[in-house]
């Protein structure tokens, strides 16, 4: 990762990783807000409206940070990856522009109404405002995943006279099968972040014996929605994603799994450290034939290892890719275990008094962030050494005139700026959690966020 190429990659990787901390909660929480507003509408119980108001405050802070860290992402295609933008802009520019026009306008218009317009809009109108915020954020997720999916699995294009990519089928780009599965997988990840955050805050309130009625609502909502999402995350979405990688990016699959040798009946590595120069896995803990079975549903199926590919086709960060993938899968498995157990206790009626389970839910809060980040790292490191898989190499895509010195300057600038935003985020959200929702018996007016 030396020279301008490495710095441009690090620049994008750092800013996108930091950015994605916020939208995953935005998208997950948006769904849970619709859940709370629906409960309020159907039961007529003001408790759910107060609960929604509490989360709307956190949503507002989180949303703002998502917006301000998201704007640099759209700019960076041009500033840092000019050659890529010039070559592929006719295709990926479509989905990026659609994201701005179809979802950002929708989100920003209705978020203001959702945060400040409760009195004016009335019960049903406010539900719709929340619904449109959810729709906007999920639409935005689809269009950005469709952009990434095209880089993973390019469809619906032709090549122009200078090698540039021209769009040839709008619907193929938009309904790319890779995008559909990746979207489902990504959104379920975001829902789990929302669920774990909500459940963790609820568990915190129950354990500290404050706002206990809300604590129960939050834990219940987080566990019920979360358990569904956690299972769907594995089957079918994770499974399908793996099959698509096996079909279209077999070199990526081999690197993710740390499979150096091609085998009939390939084992799956649970643990182990890839030693790339020696082409082997150190300290392996493997399940024989399992990778063949999971990928092709046959115990002795043929799986290509890295030795089937010339080394210039290998992802260039194999150990990091391998760990990202294993962290994602490992955490995903833990989430299923935790949430299924919590859902069982909820059904038995003992969840709110099981201190060890509440502790577990509270402590798990950061883990979905790590899993989502690791998942994206798996997707993007797995795509290497290609920018557009099989068609354009990452090394040819960056801005030729932007020097390493200038790139490092702005990378450090973003690091400083984002360090500041992190402190502000913890400070402000921490205050909201400490302050808690309005007590159930009170009749206080809704508190405005931006100007309160």
């Amino acid at each position: 990762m030396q020279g301008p190429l490495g710095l441009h990659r690090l620049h994008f990787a750092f800013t996108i990783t930091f950015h994605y901390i916020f939208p995953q909660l935005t998208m997950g929480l948006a769904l849970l807000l619709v859940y709370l507003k629906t409960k309020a509408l159907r039961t007529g119980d003001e408790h759910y409206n107060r609960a929604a108001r509490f989360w709307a405050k956190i949503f507002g802070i989180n949303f703002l940070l998502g917006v301000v860290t998201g704007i640099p992402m759209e700019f960076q295609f041009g500033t840092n990856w000019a050659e890529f933008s010039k070559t592929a802009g006719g295709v990926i520019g479509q989905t990026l522009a659609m994201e701005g026009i179809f979802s950002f306008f929708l989100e920003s218009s209705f978020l203001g109404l959702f945060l400040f317009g409760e009195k004016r809009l009335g019960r049903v109108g406010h539900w719709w405002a929340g619904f449109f915020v959810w729709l906007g954020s999920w639409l935005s997720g689809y269009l950005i995943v469709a952009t990434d999916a095209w880089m993973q699995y390019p469809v619906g294009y032709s090549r122009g006279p200078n090698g540039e990519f021209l769009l040839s089928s709008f619907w193929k780009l938009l309904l790319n099968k890779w995008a559909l599965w990746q979207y489902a997988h990504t959104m379920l990840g975001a829902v789990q972040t929302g669920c774990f955050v909500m459940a963790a805050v609820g568990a915190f309130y129950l354990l500290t014996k404050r706002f206990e009625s809300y604590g129960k609502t939050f834990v219940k909502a987080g566990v019920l929605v979360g358990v569904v999402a956690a299972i769907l995350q594995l089957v079918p979405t994770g499974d399908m994603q793996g099959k698509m990688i096996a079909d279209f990016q077999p070199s990526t699959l081999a690197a993710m799994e740390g499979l150096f040798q091609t085998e009939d009946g390939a084992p799956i590595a649970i643990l182990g450290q890839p030693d790339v120069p020696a082409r082997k896995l150190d300290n392996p803990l493997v399940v024989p034939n399992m990778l063949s079975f999971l990928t092709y549903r046959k115990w002795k199926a043929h799986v290509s290892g890295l030795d089937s590919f010339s080394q210039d086709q290998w992802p260039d960060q194999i150990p990091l890719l391998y760990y990202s993938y294993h962290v994602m899968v490992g955490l995903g498995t833990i989430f299923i275990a935790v949430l299924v157990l919590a859902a069982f206790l909820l059904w038995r009626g003992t969840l709110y008094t099981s201190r060890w389970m509440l502790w577990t839910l509270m402590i798990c809060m950061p883990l979905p962030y790590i899993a989502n980040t690791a998942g994206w790292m798996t997707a993007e490191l797995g795509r290497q050494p290609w920018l557009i898989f099989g068609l354009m190499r990452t090394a040819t895509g960056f801005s030729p005139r932007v020097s390493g010195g200038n790139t490092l300057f702005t990378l450090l600038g973003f690091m400083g700026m984002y360090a500041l935003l992190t402190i502000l985020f913890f400070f402000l959200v921490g205050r909201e959690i400490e302050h808690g929702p309005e007590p159930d018996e009170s009749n206080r007016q809704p508190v405005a966020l931006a100007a309160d």
Partner: protein
Amino acid sequence: METIWFCLVAIMLAVYVLLDGFDLGAGAIHLLVAKTNEEKRQVIASIGPVWDGNEVWLLAAGGTLFFAFPVLYASSFSGFYLPLMIVLWLLILRGASIEFRNHVQSAVWIPLWDFLFCASSALLAIFYGAALGNVVRGVPLDGSGYFFEPLWTNWRIGEQTGILDWYTVLVGVLALFALMMHGSLWVRLKTSGAVNERAGRLANVAWWGVTLLTILVTAVTFSVLPQLRTNFSRWPWGFIFPILSIAGLVGVQFELRRRNERDAFLASCAYLTGMLTSVVFSVYPMVLPARDGVHSLTVSNAKAGAYGLKVGLAWWIVGMILVAGYFQYVYRSSAGKVAAEADDAQK
């Protein structure tokens, strides 16, 4: 088809300047028109429900530029690398200051965000103006279709230009004054009491600055860059654009005297629209002129494929109809003055 997209991108950028222009302007005058905390809350409340949506026009215009003219997007964004990054940092600070200011009631918290809001807004106005100045003046593009400009070189309009030179800074100052006028007129329209009066006075002061600088910048532009006269002599109907801006400027002063707050703001919109369209008209068919006059990017050598442009037009029109609906709804539901209910800061 590429000319249509040239116009559409120009319209989106103009809408961005008109809308985000007033909230940037409101930021730039924030500390001048509001003295007490209550007054400052009024200024922020006047843009609170709309600034984020206004800023989306920048993203939407950038995205549209990306897919319609990918070569231009790649060349200009990488060439203007440093100022764009500075713009991004300013946008981050500004967004944070608007949203976070009122979260903590403290004598160190609020003044800090007020200052950052004001400073970042003013600097953004200057940078946007300087960027426009760069496009008008031309950039050191060569045969590769790329260039890179440092922030400044020797402050002259020579071969090795920087982002900032005497000309682009002059345009930047004009932009600051123009958006201060625009923002003052908006704040005046949305507030009452002391803020309203100060904003009216400030709009008048800014008007004089805008008028003088407009004359100066226009004269300088046509003498330093004579090639910009070509389109006006070829298609004289294009004079409608400068006439619109003059009419807008006269209208601002006229309506200020008549104390018609809404029409004064609309006149300012006409002025800004006229200025931007005049620039766009005089630069066409170039989208990014080269200093050497040879390697300029034009609508035809920077455009995307024909199919993409055609299919893009279909969804763009659908999208814009929806957007017009949202904006009408949001602006209508936040219509009226903010001062009356400034206490609970509902907008």
